[in-house]
C-alpha cells in the first residue's frame, strides 16, 4: 500500500515536475476500489521523496466482480489487498504516474531522459519466490536490491517468515524505467489470483517492458506470471467447503516424479487395452482426461466413459477433449460422468475394461472394500486394470524422505507384497484372474516404480 520514490541531488524537488505532482500538496485520485494518495514526506533542495499511498476499500473489493471479488469467500473480507503493495498498487502507479511512465516531460526533458540516483521503497511487497526472486528480478535491471522479509508474526518466531518483504531499490535509473519496472514486477511478485487481467494485458506488458524485458534473464517467468491469471477466478464448492474447515486443499502442481513415468504408464495401459481387445472402456477417476485423450483418438474404442468425483476436473477434461466441438458420433462415443468408486453406479456397468490408474491410493483404506464392490461386484467389467505406486521403489527417490508418500493426497502406498495380497484377495472374492505387471524401469531390488495388475473376469 505504500511506495516511496526518493531522489537525492541538487534541486531534488524537481522530482515533482517529473512525476507531475506538486510537492506541497496532498493529491488524491479515485481508483477502481479505493483511492490513491500522493504526497511528499520530504522535499528539500538535496532530497525529495514522493509517497504513493493506496487505500483499498475491502468491502468494495469483496463485492467487486471486476477484481475477482467473491462475496461468498471469507478470504475476500479478510484480505491483504488493503495493506500489501500488491498488483493493485501497480495499477494505481500506472494510473497516477501515467505521464511519468512514458518518460515525457515538457519542462525537464533532459532530467526525464537521464539516469537519476533513485531510491525506491516498497512496503509489504507480497513476493512469491521470496527475497531470492526479488533479487533475480531487479538486479539485472541495474538496481541495488535490499529486501527484508517480514516475519509472519513477531510473537510466533517459529512460524517463520511471511510472504511479504520490505524492498528498497537504489540505483541510477531513468524515472520512467523505474516506474515501468515496478508496474510489471509488482504483479509478477504478487502472483495473486486477485489480479485482474484485462483484454489488453499483452499490449500493456509490451509497452511497459519496452527496452528491458526482452533482455531480462527471467523474461519467461515474468511473462508467464504476468499473464497467468487470465480468466475468471471461480471458486468451486470444494474450495468453499475446505474453507469452512479452515484447511487448504490445494494440490501440489504435479507428481514429483519425472513426467516420463506418467507417459510410460499411459502407454502401458493403452497397450494392455489393445491386448485385451477392449472396445468399451471406462476410466474411473479420469481426472483431466490424460488417458481419455489417446482413447478418444483411436476409433478402436467405440465407447469411452470417464468418471471423476470432481465436477471441475471433468469440466477441464471436457475442454481438453474438445467435446463441445466434437462431431456427434464422438459425443456419443465419449461421455464424462461425475461419480465415485465408493458408490454403485449402473452407468459404468458392463464395460469391456475399467481402468483404475493411480486412483486406489487416494482412497482411505477403510473405503477400499466399498470401491472393490462397486467396481468388481457391481460394474463387473470383463477386465480391470489397476495401477498404484510401488512403495518399495520409494527408496530410489532421493528427495523423498523415508516413509513419505509421493503425493500428499495418497492415503497409502503399497509394497509389492501388499499389492499382491490385495489383488489376489479381490480376484478370489469377485471371480477375476490376476496378472501382475509393472511400469517403468525394473529395479532388481525394488521392482518398478508403478505396479500394475490386470484382472480378467472368469467366465461363469
Amino acid at each position, binding site marked *: *500500500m505504500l511506495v516511496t520514490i526518493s531522489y537525492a541531488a541538487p534541486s531534488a524537488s524537481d522530482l515533482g515536475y517529473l512525476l507531475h505532482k506538486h510537492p506541497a500538496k496532498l493529491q488524491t485520485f479515485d481508483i477502481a476500489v479505493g483511492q490513491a494518495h500522493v504526497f511528499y514526506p520530504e522535499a528539500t533542495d538535496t532530497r525529495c521523496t514522493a509517497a504513493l499511498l493506496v487505500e483499498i476499500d475491502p468491502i468494495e473489493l469483496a463485492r467487486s466482480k471486476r477484481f475477482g471479488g467473491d462475496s461468498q469467500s471469507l478470504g475476500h473480507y479478510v484480505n491483504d489487498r488493503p495493506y500489501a503493495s500488491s498488483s493493485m498498487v501497480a495499477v494505481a502507479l500506472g494510473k497516477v504516474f501515467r505521464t511519468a511512465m512514458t518518460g515525457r516531460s515538457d519542462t525537464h526533458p533532459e532530467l526525464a531522459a537521464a539516469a537519476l540516483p533513485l531510491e525506491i521503497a516498497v512496503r*509489504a511487497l507480497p513476493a512469491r519466490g521470496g527475497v531470492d526472486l526479488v533479487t533475480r528480478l531487479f538486479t539485472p535491471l541495474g538496481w541495488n536490491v535490499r529486501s527484508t522479509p517480514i516475519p509472519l508474526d513477531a510473537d510466533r518466531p517459529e512460524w517463520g517468515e511471511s510472504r511479504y518483504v520490505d524492498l528498497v531499490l537504489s540505483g541510477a535509473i531513468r524515472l520512467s524505467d523505474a516506474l515501468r519496472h515496478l508496474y510489471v514486477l509488482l504483479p509478477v511478485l504478487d502472483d495473486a489470483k486477485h489480479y485482474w487481467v484485462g483484454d489488453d494485458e499483452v499490449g500493456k506488458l509490451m509497452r511497459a517492458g519496452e527496452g528491458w524485458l526482452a533482455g531480462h534473464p527471467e523474461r519467461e517467468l515474468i511473462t508467464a506470471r504476468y499473464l497467468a491469471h487470465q480468466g475468471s477466478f471461480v471458486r468451486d464448492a470444494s474450495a468453499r467447503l475446505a474453507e469452512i474447515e479452515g484447511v487448504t486443499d490445494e494440490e501440489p502442481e504435479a507428481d514429483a516424479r519425472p513426467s516420463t513415468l506418467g507417459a510410460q504408464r499411459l502407454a502401458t495401459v493403452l497397450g494392455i487395452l489393445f491386448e485385451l481387445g477392449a472396445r468399451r472402456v471406462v476410466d474411473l477417476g479420469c481426472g483431466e482426461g490424460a488417458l481419455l485423450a489417446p482413447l478418444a483418438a483411436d476409433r478402436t474404442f467405440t465407447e469411452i466413459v470417464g468418471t471423476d*468425483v470432481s465436477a471441475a476436473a471433468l469440466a477441464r477434461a471436457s475442454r481438453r477433449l474438445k467435446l463441445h466441438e466434437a462431431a456427434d458420433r464422438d459425443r456419443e462415443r465419449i461421455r464424462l460422468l461425475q461419480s465415485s468408486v*465408493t458408490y454403485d453406479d449402473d452407468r459404468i456397468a458392463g464395460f469391456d475394461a475399467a481402468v483404475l490408474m493411480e486412483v486406489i491410493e487416494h482412497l482411505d483404506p477403510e473405503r477400499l472394500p466399498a470401491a472393490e464392490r462397486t467396481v468388481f461386484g457391481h460394474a463387473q467389467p470383463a477386465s480391470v486394470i489397476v495401477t498404484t505406486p510401488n512403495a518399495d521403489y520409494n527408496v530410489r527417490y532421493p528427495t523423498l524422505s523415508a516413509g513419505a508418500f509421493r503425493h500428499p493426497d495418497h492415503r497409502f502406498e503399497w509394497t509389492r507384497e501388499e499389492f499382491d495380497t490385495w489383488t489376489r484377495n479381490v480376484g478370489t472374492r469377485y471371480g477375476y484372474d490376476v496378472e501382475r505387471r509393472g511400469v517403468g524401469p525394473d529395479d532388481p531390488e525394488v521392482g518398478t516404480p508403478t505396479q500394475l495388475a490386470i484382472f480378467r473376469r472368469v467366465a461363469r
Partner: protein
Amino acid sequence: MTRLGIPAMSLVVLVGVSGSGKSTFAAHKFGPHETLSSDAFRALVSNDQNDQSATEAAFDALRYVAAKRLAAGLLTVIDATNVQPAARKSFVDLAKAHDVLPVAIVLDVPAAVAVERNAERPDRDFGAHVVRRQHDQLRRSLRFLGKEGFRRIHVLDSVDAIADAEIVREPLLTDRRDERGPFDAIGDVHGCRAELETLLDRLGYQVLRDPDGRAVDARHPDGRRAIFLGDLVDRGPDVPGVLRLAMGMVRAGNALAVPGNHEEKLLRALDGKSPAMTHGLAESLTQLAAETPEFREEVRAFCRGLVSHLILDEGRLVVAHAGLKEAYHGRASGRVRAFALYGDTTGESDEFGLPVRLPWAEDYRGSAVVLYGHTPTPQVAWVNNTACLDTGCVFGGELSAMRYPEREVVSVPAEQVWFEPVRPLQPPPPEEREAGVLRIDDVLGAHIVETTTHGRIGVRAENAAGALEVMARWAVDPRWLLHLPPTMSPPATSSIPGYLEHPHEAFSAYRSEGVGSVIAEEKHMGSRAIVLAARDPDRFGAPPGWRGIIHTRTGRRFFSAAVEAEVLEGVHAALDASGILAELESDWVLLDAEIVPWSVKAGDLIRDLYASVGAAATAALPAAVAALESAAGRGVDVSELLDRTQRRAANSFAYQDAYRRYAADDEVQIAPFQVLASEARTYATQDHSWHLAIADRLVAADPGLFRTTARRMVDLSNEDSVADAVAWWEELTAAGGEGIVVKPHANLVRAARGLVLPGIKVRGREYLRIIYGPDYTEVSHLARLRDRSLGHKRSMAAREYSLGLEALERVVRREPLWRVHQAVFAILAMESEPVDPRL
C-alpha cells in the same frame, strides 16, 4: 348451458373438422397452457401453421409435450381435427401410458358452417371438399369412440351447444388430499371383529353399539379417523360384524376405506358371478347368508363404492391395499387398480400356489408415505417410506394400526389362529442393500429428502455435485457418518452503535417466536466436532478394535488415526467412569462438541490467511503513518488521511491480538454440549440443562480431556436476567472470548412458522475483526456491513438442522445406510451452496 363433466386429471381430445371452432372452444373453456394445438406445433416446427408437410413432426412434438404434462399430472387438451381413428388412438394410448382417463369432446357443426368459416380465413386455402371429407370421417367415428377407449364422450352438435357448454372438472375419486387426518391406518382385518374392537379401543376410539350390542360405529374423541386398508372380509370368524362396524364408521365419517382383493372377489360373488370359493370366500358367504338381504345389499353397495386408493393429507399419505408405486399415485387405469388390489405381481405362482409379488417397496423413492396391507409379515417395518400393516391377525398374528402422522404402531394379538396359513408368515423384508453399499443415484442429481421436522427438503443437482467430491475424497466412512451439525445463524444486525452483533437481537428473536426461557452457552474458540464413541464395532460395520470416530462439521476425520485413538480412549474411559452409557441403555453415544484450540484444525488458515494479513498490515500501516507525519511536519495538510491511517494501524494490532487468541498451543480439549443419539433414541427434545449435565459429568470424570461449557439461564421476561446475560457476554468477549450461543432452553421447539432455530451465535466485537477484516469497526465500514441478509442463512440453518435430526432418527430406527447417508449428504450439499461466509 350444457355441463360437460371431465375428470380433473385427464387427456381431453377435441374432435371436429377444420373450421368447427375447436381452438376458440379450447381458448374459452380451458387454461392458456392446457391446450396443445396441432396448428401451433406445425408453426413451431415449420414457421407455418398450415404446412401439411410438417404434420408428422408437429404431432411428434405435440405428443412429447403432452407426455411431459401428463407425467406431471396436468390436464391436457389436444386441439387437432382427430377425425381419423388412428389419430385418436395415439392419444388414447398416450393417456393409458400415463394412467389418466382419455376424454373425447366432439364439436359436430354442420359442414356448411365449417366451410364458410374456412373461406373467411385466407391462410386456409383448402377446398370445401376437404372439410366434407373430414365431416364424413367424423360421422363414421362417433359411435366407435367408446370402443376406442374414451372414458367420457361429449358430443356438442350445434354451434349454440358448443358456445353454451361449460366444462366441469370433477376431482378423481382417489383425490382426498384435503383430508389431513390424523389417521389410524388399520391392516387386514379378515373378519377378526373382536381383535378389531380391541384395537380400536387401544387406539382410543369409543365403540358404539346398536340395541343388540353389535358394534356399529366407533368414534375418536380427538376426531382421529381410521383407515381400513382392505381385506375386511373372508377367512375370519365374524365377517358381517367387521363389515357392520367398518361400514358404520365410514358412513358416519369416522373412517375411510380402500378395497382389498377379497372385497373385490366378494363383490363379484354378491353380484351373482361365481368366483372360486377359495381363500375364505366361502366362510364370508356363509356368514353373510345369515344376515338380512338389506345388509347384504348394503355390503354390496359398500364394496362397489370403494376407490382403488386414496391420496390424503395434501399428497403426503397414500393408502392402498397392496401398496402403490409412485407413478400410479392419483392415477386412474385398470393397471393402477390392479396394482392397488393385488400388488406388483409377475403373473406367476409360487410353490404354495400364491402369486409371486415383486418387492415394489424396495424401489420406492417417493416422498409420500404409503401404508398398505395385503402381504402378511411378522411385524410392521418401514421400507423406503412405506409400511405394510398386515401382521396376519387371522393367521394368529397381530392386528396392527399405524398412527399417522405420528408413525406409531399399535398392535393387538390375535385371540387365536382363525385360519391356517397356506405358507408360514414371510420374514420381514430383507434390507435391500448389503450393508455399506450406496448407490450414486442415492445422492447425485436433484433429489428430495423427507424430514419429520421440516417436510420435504430439496437438494439441488449442482450442490450435490459439489458435495460428492468432499464426501468421496475426504469424509469418513459413511457407515460412521451419522450426522453433520447444522450451520448456525447470527442474530439480526444490532442497532447499538459500534456493534454488529449483540445478545439483544438473539433474545428478541426467540421472544418473538414465543420462547420464554433460553440458555446462553459460552462459544468455545475451537472447531465443531462430532464424537462417536462405540463399544461394539459391529454395530457400525467397523473392524474389531474400532472405538468410534471424531469428525469435523464437513465429515472429515478430525485427528490423525493415532491421536484419535488416544482421544477416544479417554472418551470411553470418561463414559465408563460416569456411567452415562448404562444410563442411556446404549453401547454407543454420539456427542456434539467443540474441540479446542482452533489451531488444531485451522492452523494453516491462521497462518496463511490471518497471520499473513496481520503481517502485511502491521508492516505497512506504521510506515504509512510515519510518511504522513513527515509530510504533516512539512506543513502539507494530510490530517484526515493521517488520522484515518493511525486508526487503521491501531486496528491492525487489535486484529493481530484477535487471531492470536486462536493460535494458542494449548492441549486438545473436548467441550461436549449436546448428546445427539444413542442406540434407541435421539435427544433433541431433552432440554439443554440435561445435555450440559451429561457434559459436566464427563468433565468431572476427566477434567483434562473435557472442558466445561459456561452457561447462563435467561428468563426473557425478566429484565434483570437479560441484563445479567448481556453483562456476561460483554465480560466474556472483552476477555477475548468468541461469544455465546443462545438456545431455547427446551431444545427443539416448534412455533407457528415451523421449527425455531436451534441456536443463534452472538459473536464478540473483537472476534469479528477476523471475520470482517481489521477495519470493520470504522464507522464508514460498519454502516455498509450492517446490511447483512440473514434470510438465506437462517433458512439454510433450519433445513440443515432438520436434515441432521432426520439422519439421527434414521440411525436410531436402524434404517438402511443409504437412507441415513442421503440425509447426511444433503447437509453437506446445503453447505456447498454459496452463502455469505461472514454470517
